[in-house]
Each structure stands twice: as structure tokens, then as C-alpha cells.
């Protein structure tokens, strides 16, 4: 068995780059250093062998050339196509997607709009006091996980960067590093915290505001209990935050999807701002898809906006709540859809899934997903990190080269998108 070290895991925003893969007869047979989810991704089976197309309600196998032609026809026939996904593919493919969208005059959106889109709205309002995960690992003596559950969603986050990691500038990091978890339910992560703050659903904004008031010397204004959290605990937590040497606040979709959405995140950023008057404190969103941060970067370089970019006016236009995928689908506005590297049928509300069903839809994905049965065409591609390489951005904004471990013969996302894009230019005479 051949062993390949230092591979990068293409599952979550941690982008763990210390994975060892065992290869036998051209396929991955074992993983080392992977979490359960990364392991399942590397050992994933049942990839589609060739492109498939739905004709008269039945699937038929087609060639890549036929698939490219069919995709071009669907996209060019549309008045307002939606190009959605992008977070599970590499930056180079995302670049082609933006060019393609400009030609089509459609909307390009990533899974950001249903994960940390609200965080971006808040960051655009008040900035991002962030740092690298390396800084957190080596310096943070206090870690807060707010509205996130890394043990289940980012399984190696705590062992690589926070709770269980050694710190270069910390003595006995494992024992001395304090962990606070804030959540509406007692998750597995909450069970290992030094301090667990259980707030009532929808109470994040009030708790953040109370902590800010205490830090600004206005503790007298705080009632005995705020959103189910006692004043005593709030005072204690504020003191822990104020007196640490380096604090790191990580927050998840528990803030962005709850009542208040981006205003919760704005308040969290402003809490970090307040804490920086006392000590050093930073904030990092726990990004889900391995390259969702990359999609925001690429879209920003190329269009000026990080997600939900609408080209129907010929220039980039951005208005989350209007140009975001959920809203466009719910309003039944788009008349064709290209889904790449994501699975909206599994993760969008039913009304949006019904709209995907009702319009021509192309899926680009190595595996059959829940989006496949509703697609008109699916084009299988290489999996970045296994049989394709590319650039990805870790949750702290650090670009990392995701490697290729074998040659499977599948085209990469960049290759297939480039073929569609070039054919599109040819048909339009551009």
C-alpha cells in the first residue's frame, strides 16, 4: 500500500492539511488523522461513471460532449439563470463561473447565503477583527464557541487549533486554556466547556448586549436574568473575557440563522471591539464548506461583492434578501439553474426545491445527491482533494493548495466549466 502524507481534507472550513492517505490499486483504502466526516469523504463510493440526462422522464447515459452541448443549450435559453453552489469546488472553477455568469446576465450565489451570509453583512457594517487559526492555537488562553458545535460540525477544530492543542506561547495549554460555550442546547461541545451559557432561543442579541453593557461599566442596568442567563453568570463571563491575555470568539450558524440574524453577528463583533479596550480579542466565523470562504474571495475580487451577485443589468448588483438564491427561487424568478458542488434539494426549504424541480437544471457533482433526481442533466467531475487540485480558503482566510492524489480520468470542475463557457462564447459569437 502506498502512503501519501500531508494531504488536505476537502470537507469543512478547517482544511486539515495533515491527512495521510493509503492508496491501493488506484483507490483510497485508508485515512489517518481524518475526522469521521473527512474519512467518509475520502472513502466515498458510488460516483457517477458518466454524464446522465433525463429524457421523457427517464435517465439516459450520455457523453461529455453531449453533456456540454446540453448545458449550453439550457443556460443560453434562459432569461434569468441562477448559478448556485461553488463552496465545494476550488477557486479556479469559481473564477470561470463568474465569467460565465457575466455572459449569461444571471445571478451567481454560493452556499454562503444559507450559512454565513448574515456574518458577511455584519462584517460589511462594522469590520472583521479576525486573525489566523495559528494565532489562536499559539496564543489564545480563552476560547468562546457561540452558536456552534465543532465536535459535530468541525470535528478536529478543537484538537488542532483550540481546546486540546498545544500553544507555543502558553504554558500547559491543555489545562490552562479556558473554554466558554454559548448555545440554546447542551451540545457535545457544551459538555466539555469550562463554562456553559444556555440561552433561550432567540436571546443571543440580548445576551451580547448585556455583556457589552457590563464591560462598559453599566452592570447596574442588567436585570437578574437575561434570555434565561443569570446576571451572576454574565458578570463572571465578562470578567473571564476581560482578564484573559488573548481571547478568540468563534461563532456558528447558531447566530446567523436565529432571530436577529446579521444583527446578532454585528453585536458579537462589537462585543469583541469592546473587549479590545481591555485585552486582545478576535472573532472568526466557523465556515462550513471547505471553500465557502474562497467563493466569497473570488466573487469579491471579480465583481466587488462576496455572494448573491446579479448581472442582469450588465454590471454587478448585490442586494441580499433580493438577489440571494432562496429569495430568487421562492419568488419563482429564475428560469434555469446550474448547481455545482452543493446539494440544495437537501438544504433548501421545500418551496425553493419545488422551483428547482420546475425549471431546467444542470447538476455538476461527482456523486448522486438529493439534487440528482430533480436535475435534467448531471455531469460527474473529479473530487478536488482526491483527483483534482485547486485553491481553497480556510475559515480564517488563509489560501491553501488542495492536492491531487490520483488520476481518475474525470474532468475537474475547472475543465468542465471552461468547456461549457467556451462553447457558450462560440454560440454567441463572442
Amino acid at each position, binding site marked *: 500500500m502506498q502512503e501519501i502524507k500531508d494531504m488536505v481534507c476537502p*470537507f469543512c472550513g478547517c482544511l486539515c492539511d495533515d491527512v495521510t492517505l493509503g492508496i491501493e490499486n488506484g483507490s483510497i483504502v485508508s485515512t489517518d488523522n481524518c475526522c*469521521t*466526516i473527512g474519512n*467518509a*469523504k475520502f472513502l*466515498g463510493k458510488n460516483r*457517477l461513471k458518466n454524464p446522465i440526462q433525463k429524457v421523457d*422522464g*427517464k*435517465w439516459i447515459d450520455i457523453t461529455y460532449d453531449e453533456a456540454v452541448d446540453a448545458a449550453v443549450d439550457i443556460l443560453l435559453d434562459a432569461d434569468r439563470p441562477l448559478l448556485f453552489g461553488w463552496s465545494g469546488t476550488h477557486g479556479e472553477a469559481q473564477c470561470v463561473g463568474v465569467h460565465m455568469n457575466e455572459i449569461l446576465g444571471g445571478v451567481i450565489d454560493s452556499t454562503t*447565503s*444559507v450559512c454565513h*451570509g*448574515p456574518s458577511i453583512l455584519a462584517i460589511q457594517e462594522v469590520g472583521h477583527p479576525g486573525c489566523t487559526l495559528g494565532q489562536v492555537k499559539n496564543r489564545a488562553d480563552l476560547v468562546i464557541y457561540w452558536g456552534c*458545535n465543532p*465536535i*459535530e*460540525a468541525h*470535528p478536529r477544530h478543537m484538537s488542532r487549533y483550540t481546546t486540546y492543542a498545544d500553544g507555543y506561547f502558553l504554558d500547559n495549554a491543555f489545562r490552562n486554556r479556558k473554554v466558554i460555550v454559548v448555545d*440554546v*442546547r*447542551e451540545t457535545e461541545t*457544551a459538555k466539555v466547556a469550562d463554562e456553559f451559557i444556555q440561552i*433561550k*432561543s432567540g436571546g443571543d442579541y440580548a445576551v451580547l448586549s448585556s455583556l457589552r453593557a457590563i464591560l462598559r461599566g453599566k452592570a447596574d442596568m442588567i436585570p437578574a436574568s437575561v434570555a434565561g442567563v443569570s446576571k451572576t453568570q454574565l458578570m463572571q463571563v465578562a470578567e473571564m473575557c476581560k482578564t484573559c491575555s488573548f481571547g478568540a470568539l468563534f461563532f456558528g*450558524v*447558531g447566530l*446567523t*440563522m*436565529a*432571530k436577529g*440574524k446579521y444583527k446578532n453577528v454585528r453585536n458579537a463583533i462589537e462585543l469583541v471591539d469592546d473587549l479590545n479596550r481591555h485585552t486582545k480579542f478576535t472573532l472568526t466565523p466557523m465556515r462550513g464548506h471547505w471553500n465557502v470562504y474562497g467563493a466569497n474571495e473570488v466573487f469579491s475580487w471579480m465583481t466587488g461583492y462576496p455572494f*448573491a451577485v446579479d448581472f442582469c443589468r450588465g454590471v454587478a448588483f448585490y442586494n*441580499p*434578501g*433580493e438577489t*440571494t438564491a*432562496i*429569495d430568487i427561487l*421562492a419568488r419563482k424568478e429564475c428560469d434555469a439553474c446550474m448547481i455545482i458542488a452543493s*446539494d440544495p*434539494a*437537501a*438544504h*433548501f*426549504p*421545500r*418551496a*425553493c*426545491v*419545488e422551483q428547482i*424541480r420546475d425549471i431546467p437544471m444542470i447538476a455538476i457533482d461527482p*456523486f*448522486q*445527491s*438529493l439534487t*440528482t*433526481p*430533480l436535475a435534467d442533466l*448531471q455531469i460527474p467531475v473529479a473530487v478536488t482533494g482526491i483527483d483534482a487540485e485547486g485553491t481553497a480558503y480556510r475559515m480564517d482566510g488563509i489560501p491553501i493548495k488542495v492536492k491531487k492524489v490520483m488520476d481518475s480520468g474525470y474532468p475537474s470542475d475547472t475543465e468542465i466549466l471552461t468547456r461549457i463557457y467556451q462553447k457558450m462564447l462560440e454560440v454567441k459569437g463572442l
Partner: protein
Amino acid sequence: MKFILNTGRTIRQGKYIENKLGQGYAEETSLCRIHPLDLLELGVEEGENILVKSEIGEIVLEVLADEGLPKGMVFISYGIHCNSIISPRTHGTGMPDYKIHEVEIFPTSEQRKTPTEILEQLGGVRYAGN
């Protein structure tokens, strides 16, 4: 009884991310975690089925007792089951209420559907494989 629906990642759901048409994913995403005292009030035992109803629709799930949840809240892992009852309204933010959605729960003798069955009901066609 009325509840707040909370959805999120579980490690088992994540494990089946590239095999969503399989039995493991279907089992995990059709589980509804609920506080044991709420179960008592509903008159349902762990392992039995419930009907979860929202303004959008309804879905049958199996209950799992979870003391980590506050009373009045249920938790379902990300997937087609919970999304069948979530409203597409985003209040101008692009983000639906995945963490704070009002639902009503009733005991039921109906059976759970698999994601494939839900998709077929929606008009989807499963690819049998090559």
C-alpha cells in the same frame, strides 16, 4: 403541542454527506430530538413516530429523547425532512429561519418517508446507476 424547531449538523449526518440516498442518511435526518419531559406530555415514547406540522407542510419523524434540549424545542439534523417544513421567508437577509421555526407536534402511527420517497413525491426520478 407547539415547539420551536432548531436544525443543525450532527456528525452522523455529516458522515453520510456523499451518500445521501443511503439508509444511514435517511435514518439520521428523519430523527427528531426532544426533551424527555416533552415526550411525556406528548404521550409518545422514544422510537415512536410523530407528525411535525408547520405553516408550510408536515412530515413524519421518529423521536429521540435528548436531555440537552430545553423544554419546548426540538432538533432535527440538516436534510430534506426538516426542510420540508421550513418557510422560504428570509426577512430580507437571504437566510430562512433554520434555527427558530414554529411547529406543532402530534403523535402519529404513520411511517417515515426516506429522502428518495420525498423526492419521488415531488416528481423526482432516481437514477438507478451504471
